[in-house]
């Protein structure tokens, strides 16, 4: 028995060690799902809704209807989230979280079976629970917690949300408040909001305290709980606070100017006792006092911070943090990406992946800076707290040209270290063209190693000559005839004009033909086809393409449930038929990558769709600013294209709005003028409609969106209107330029 135990422990330890060793951080790739695709991802929402609906019961018809509305919306919205490309299963983090779940619920296998945990690729520090038992934990949360026990407490908290049905009860209660039912009669709008917030806070407090009760049944250490609230309080800060050195990018005589850095960073200002009146959660001080007061005073010695092992926790956290770098790039938070990579470099000093992240962050920011804009949601450096403010300041203060040079210098170094990395080669080429086109900088503007030596010699010679000034007949140097200000200006101009620091950027690298080619004049990459072409003809001349998960959304604002989920589900299937009919007419070969086609064995397709979703998400972020960037997920896109033997992917869909009639009274009044009456009556009896058709076609090889079609029509989305637009879109894809 003892031997068996030793073997078992040894096996577990070995598994952990091997797992830690197996993960290749040097070539980190976004987390991928593996194993069997869970039913949550494959079952149709309408089926889930009907099943959930049959399980609810209420004495009140109105309450029953509210619950049905909740289940309808939640099932479809959960499906959207699960198919967003940001949710993974069967990956190391999800497996780890599920192991913690098993540890917590080992006494309640039934509950353990009801709860399914997935990981959300997001840098938000959060976890949330759905009414159907799905618990989602973000990689951001895993990045920030200090140990496994903290994760365990957070999961306990989430499990209580599920067992107590907080999501649906909160919805029903909020609807009662909206209707002014019972005690909620005659409340003003502000009072209604406060009641809703108060109800949500009560639920959170209940989850905290009952979560602690569940936590007590585990062997996790109570010491961890206090830290959970610290994690929440400081969740807006990076994963660590490390001083960003001012000489981080310096090399030889290439030294970034001092004014690019801030002398005093903003202090961290988060407080525990903030006003939580308009918050769904009680403030940290209250939560801490409620929970910590309930922790038993008994010895904590037998309890552990990491039951599954500290090594495994550390590895999982590093995976989450590496993932965070990638997510910051996708979300266009370049400063955060750079700072997180810098922090990780303290443990992985020569990690090539982290260098690529930094190169990508500098590159992305350069493109925005050259375009004279900032990414959506960008935070101004003055609002940033902590050490990362230094990076925000650097990004803000360095001018576009100098930043472009810095980005190229860093990317070129990474490229030289990894010459086979196509993405880095493309980035260098783009940065070189930007320097040439935007700043008129060519390779000969940079000193070679030999020129640097000559420059240093010349400067030394100059210093020697100025050291001994010629003396005139009365014993005064000629220098005294020049004023102090002229001398300063002269010296400043000499340095600025002849040898500004950026000219030393490439002194240590070979000015090879490849390097010089970066600055060749070529057509600049642009975001996509010009805006003027949005409704003109594209004529891509394609013979085949893959359509990714067609979209159909129908919103009827006149209805109590504006989003027509069930109708849209059917319409989406019809949409595919229409696409097929038009494609057949045009002799265009169309394949689908669609969640409705995925079965439980098709995890690879699921992963491919996740990559495509993230790629288009990042691309669209840049398109909003009309900017072309070699996106961080380009490599993955090309891999999928290669595996499917296809060059182009398309995203297309229809969004239909039906709006309430406006100015009804005025129109009825105007009907008194009889000649207008027929038109006004027609207008009154027909709802206002807007239907949007869109199609995006991406070339996997170039990473460009070759077609960005958008059409809006005031017609309803009739079959004829849909077919007409779909045929038009596909013809544009198939047609050749004349």
């Amino acid at each position: 028995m003892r031997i068996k135990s030793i073997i078992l422990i040894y096996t577990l330890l070995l598994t952990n060690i091997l797992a830690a060793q197996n993960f290749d951080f040097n070539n980190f790739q976004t987390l991928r799902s593996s194993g069997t695709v869970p039913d949550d991802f494959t079952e149709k929402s309408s089926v889930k809704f009907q099943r959930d609906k049959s399980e609810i019961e209420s004495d009140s018809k109105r309450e029953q209807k509210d619950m049905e509305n909740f289940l309808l919306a939640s099932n479809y919205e959960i499906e959207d989230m699960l198919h967003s490309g940001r949710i993974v299963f069967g990956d190391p983090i999800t497996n780890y979280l599920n192991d913690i779940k098993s540890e917590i619920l080992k006494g309640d296998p039934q509950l353990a079976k009801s709860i399914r945990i997935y990981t959300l690729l997001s840098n938000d520090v959060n976890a949330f629970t759905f009414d159907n038992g799905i618990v989602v934990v973000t990689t951001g949360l895993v990045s920030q917690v200090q140990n496994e026990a903290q994760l365990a407490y957070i999961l306990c908290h989430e499990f209580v949300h599920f067992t107590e049905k907080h999501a649906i009860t909160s919805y029903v209660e909020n609807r009662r408040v909206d209707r002014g039912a019972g005690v909620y009669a005659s409340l003003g709008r502000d009072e209604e909001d406060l009641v809703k917030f108060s109800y949500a806070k009560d639920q959170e407090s209940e989850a905290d305290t009952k979560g602690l009760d569940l936590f007590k049944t585990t062997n996790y250490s109570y010491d961890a709980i206090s830290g959970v609230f610290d994690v929440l309080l400081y969740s807006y800060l990076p994963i660590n606070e490390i001083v960003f050195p001012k000489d981080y990018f310096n090399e030889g005589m290439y030294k970034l100017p001092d004014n690019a850095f801030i002398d005093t960073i903003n202090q961290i200002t988060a407080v525990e006792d903030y006003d939580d009146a308009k918050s769904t959660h009680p403030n940290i001080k209250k939560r801490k006092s409620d929970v910590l007061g309930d922790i038993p005073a008994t010895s904590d010695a037998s309890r552990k911070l990491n039951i599954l092992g500290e090594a495994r926790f550390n590895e999982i956290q590093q995976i989450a943090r590496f993932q965070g770098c990638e997510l910051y790039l996708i979300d266009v938070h370049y400063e955060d990406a750079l700072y997180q990579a810098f922090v990780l470099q303290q443990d992985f000093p020569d990690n090539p992946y982290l260098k690529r992240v930094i190169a990508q962050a500098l590159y992305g920011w350069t493109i925005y800076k050259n375009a004279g804009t900032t990414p959506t949601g960008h935070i101004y450096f003055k609002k940033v707290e902590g050490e990362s403010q230094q990076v925000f300041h650097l990004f803000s203060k360095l001018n576009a040209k100098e930043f472009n040079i810095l980005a190229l210098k860093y990317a070129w170094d990474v490229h030289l270290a990894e010459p086979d990395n196509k993405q880095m080669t493309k980035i260098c080429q783009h940065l070189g063209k930007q320097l040439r086109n935007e700043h008129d900088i060519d390779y000969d503007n940079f000193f070679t190693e030999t020129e640097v030596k000559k420059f240093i010699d010349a400067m030394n010679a100059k210093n020697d000559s100025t050291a001994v000034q010629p003396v005139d007949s009365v014993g005064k140097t000629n220098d005294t005839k020049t004023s102090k200000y002229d001398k300063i200006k002269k010296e400043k101009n000499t340095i600025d004009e002849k040898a500004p620091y950026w000219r030393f950027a490439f002194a240590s690298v070979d000015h090879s033909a490849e390097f010089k080619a970066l600055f060749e004049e070529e057509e600049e990459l642009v975001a996509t086809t010009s805006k003027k072409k949005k409704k003109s003809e594209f004529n891509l001349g394609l013979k085949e393409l893959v359509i990714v998960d067609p979209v159909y959304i129908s919103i009827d604002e006149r209805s109590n449930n504006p989003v027509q989920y069930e109708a849209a589900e059917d319409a989406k299937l019809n949409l595919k038929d229409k696409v097929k009919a038009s494609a057949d007419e045009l002799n265009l070969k169309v394949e689908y990558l669609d969640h409705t086609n995925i079965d439980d064995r098709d995890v690879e397709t699921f992963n491919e769709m996740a990559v495509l979703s993230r790629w288009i998400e990042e691309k669209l972020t840049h398109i909003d600013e009309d900017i072309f960037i070699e996106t961080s997920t380009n490599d993955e896109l090309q891999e999928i294209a290669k595996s499917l033997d296809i060059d182009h992917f398309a995203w297309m869909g229809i969004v239909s709005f039906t709006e309430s009639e406006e100015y009804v009274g005025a129109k009825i009044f105007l009907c008194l003028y009889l000649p207008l009456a027929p038109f006004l009556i027609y207008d009154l009896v027909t709802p206002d409609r807007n239907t949007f058709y869109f199609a995006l076609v991406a070339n996997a090889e170039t990473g460009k969106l070759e077609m960005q079609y958008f059409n809006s029509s005031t017609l309803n989305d009739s079959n004829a209107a849909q077919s007409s637009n779909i045929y038009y879109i596909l013809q544009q894809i198939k047609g050749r330029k004349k």
Partner: protein
Amino acid sequence: MKRIILALCSLAISASAIAQVPGYMGKRLQIYASVEPTFDFRYITDGLDYYLQQPEVTIPTEYGNYGIGVTPGVGIEYTLNNTFVMGADVKWKQAKAQLHMYYNTASNPDIPYGYLGEGKISGMLTGFYFKIYSHRKHGYIAPIGRYHQFEILTGKFSMQESGYSSTDFYAVDYQEYYSNLSLQASELTPVASLSQLNFDPHRISYLRYVFGGETVLFDKVPADIGIQFAMPLSFVQYGDYDNGIDKGGYDYAYTVRKSMNGAMAVGIVMRFGIFAI
């Protein structure tokens, strides 16, 4: 007219050369049948007007001031590109004319014939048109969506007897009306058929505007509904008939034109078609 046809044909050729996505799912040519119910605003003739001023006299007319006409037609249209459609159509138009008197002395001055009564004007209109779909502004892709149609219509119309008529001019108290003319009822030979007066068919041209919406039913049948407004392109001149069929001819032409204008002014257009190509 030939020039217009040639211009439209050349437009079609040049437009299809640049067109990339014409028609509904690639189907460009459609043949259709149309029905156009019109609101006829009837021309109140002088004769009726006289009676209207005699309250004690029963008005011997079957037609009121307003009516509804139905115009059947067939047509063919071709989608040039996302925005333009051109087409041609033929429609058969009828309108009722209220009580009036027509006479023709030109054919036989000694025995002038006269017709007293109501009439039915009929003729065939041939039209050429183009339709504009707001592709750029509203995203409609021809031939689906709302459109503005501009059409030139032309046709010859003649009138034949219909409804009330009288071969006894003295049966009605028309003397005062006659007194305003240089004729006496006794000088006219009343006839029951307008054709005996040998009036030439009268040509009228219209510029028609239609605002409508088109869709395709069951992926096969183009269907269209719209509202039309038409205005005549010319007016009858008294002098045109002075030396030909004199005053009576003028009255006839004037009645035909005014009645047709009233019948063409406003209407509803309904069409169903099939895709030929």
